């Protein structure tokens, strides 16, 4: 194996791939957060918990009903989206017009409750979830071994993110959502049912989190705290990308995953803090985030 900057290419590309996979999850989770923040003005702290619920729904479908990965990829996000819409209708709707802190407290409380219930039912240890047969094995690229499932996660996440960006930036539905984000009162006065759009948007955002949860299940195992580990980094990603910026969330997600991967290769001690160091630097230089509008 040829060493590069004193590191074997196998190790370098292996870590880069891990970084890219983490980045894919950061991107999908921060994209959902950005969409929700834009429409509901709520910093959705329950996002990590709902990501975990998505993974558990897939696990439950497999172990109870023998429903495999591919149907779970649709059923789990739909189920979690319905749960999210119920939460929005019964709780978050009441926070309209209140300070951000109320949304943060409510969703933080929800996250603790959801995680607590799952910890009580399943314990803290991970439940294994096998990758689908179609994606077992991998490819030897010469300079590294690429597991098929991990390649799928990166490609599929990127496709989902780009599809979401296209829907929001280039379609009429997206134009309506952008209008709602800018001025919900006036958008409603044009005859558009804004409360229903807000509910659907929250459902879509947490559905994305659940989709990421299903994708993550074969890689990280299914654990009640799998979302809690992720969510803080994901918030940092959203801040770096620019609160409410769709492209910022996607770009920053993948970029920071890669930066984290590279840090693991060259200076592993800093791997857990590098994202936060970048967040501080971005906040100092560009407080609205890399892709955010001026504040």
């Amino acid at each position, binding site marked *: 194996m040829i060493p590069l900057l004193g590191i074997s290419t196998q190790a370098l590309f292996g870590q880069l791939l891990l970084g890219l996979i983490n980045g894919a999850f950061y991107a999908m989770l921060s994209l959902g957060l950005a969409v929700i923040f834009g429409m509901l003005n709520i910093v959705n702290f329950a996002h990590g918990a709902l990501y975990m619920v998505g993974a558990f729904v897939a696990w439950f479908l497999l172990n109870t009903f023998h429903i495999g990965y591919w149907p779970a990829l649709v059923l789990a996000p739909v189920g979690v989206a319905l749960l999210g819409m119920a939460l929005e209708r019964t709780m978050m709707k009441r926070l309209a017009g209140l300070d951000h802190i109320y949304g943060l407290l409510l969703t933080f409380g929800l996250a603790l409750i959801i995680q607590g219930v799952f910890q009580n039912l399943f314990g803290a240890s991970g439940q294994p979830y096998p990758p689908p047969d179609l994606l077992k094995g991998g490819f030897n690229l010469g300079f590294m071994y690429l597991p098929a499932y991990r390649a799928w996660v990166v490609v599929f996440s990127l496709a989902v993110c780009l599809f979401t960006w296209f829907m929001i930036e280039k379609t*009429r539905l997206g*134009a*309506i959502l*952008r*209008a709602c*984000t*800018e*001025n919900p*009162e*006036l*958008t*409603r*006065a*044009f*005859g*558009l*049912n*804004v409360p229903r759009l807000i509910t659907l948007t929250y459902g879509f955002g947490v559905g994305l989190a659940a989709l990421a949860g299903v994708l993550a299940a074969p890689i990280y195992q299914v654990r009640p705290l799998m979302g809690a580990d992720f969510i803080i980094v994901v918030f940092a990603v959203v801040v770096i990308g620019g609160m409410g910026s769709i492209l910022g969330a996607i770009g920053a997600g993948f970029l920071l995953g890669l930066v984290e991967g590279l840090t693991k290769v060259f200076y592993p001690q800093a791997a857990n803090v590098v994202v936060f160091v970048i967040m501080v630097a971005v906040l100092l230089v560009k407080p609205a985030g890399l892709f955010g509008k001026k504040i």
Partner: protein
Amino acid sequence: MSDRTMSDRTKSEPLLKVSGLQAWYGESHALHGVDFEVRAGEVVTLLGRNGAGKTTTLKCAMGMAPRREGSIRFDGAETIALPSDKIARRGVALCPEERGVFASLTVLENLLLPPKIAPGGLSLDEIYELFPNLRERSTSMGGKLSGGEQQMLAIGRILRTGARLLMLDEPTEGLAPIIVKQIGAAIRRLKPRGFTVLLVEQNFRWASGLADRFYVMEHGRVIDAFAAAELPENMDKLHAYLGV
């Protein structure tokens, strides 16, 4: 371009009837019992000084004022308790004072945003014919438009929907005289097509050339009303009301 079909009701029956309308912003009592009506096909102007309650009256008719009481009947049905999207679906459209052009949407996206609620609205080409600047700037973002272009877009946007009652809040505010003239010409062209227009305007000279009837508001009430034909004999009174 075929003329809009008038509703079955005759011109003498009001399309909009506001009675005893009261409104509050928090603790502040903004309207104290507003009464007026607008008949189908008319252009009616609400006149009054700043703070008289004109904008709040329009917001109430659109279902946008936070707390309102009294009666607002549109096309014979009560709408006082309806949310704004339901009122819009019945055929009421508002062009707000601050124009409300969405900065993150292109001109075309802004124009296509309100859904069509009934036949009879203008086509895109007809809107571009009324306001040629909008055609040239159709791909520009709303936030990049000049004040005049924003006003044209805000008016053009509500002409597509097929709404029967168009409420325009201070459409000439802060605009250059040539743009004011262009907007006046556009409103004049809407009238023969059966659009009903409720106008809030401080530029009395401009409004006097357009409106069929006037209501004067002061301290959250309608205090006087007269038709366009009665204007000459009421000019002194009007100057006193408006302080011009």
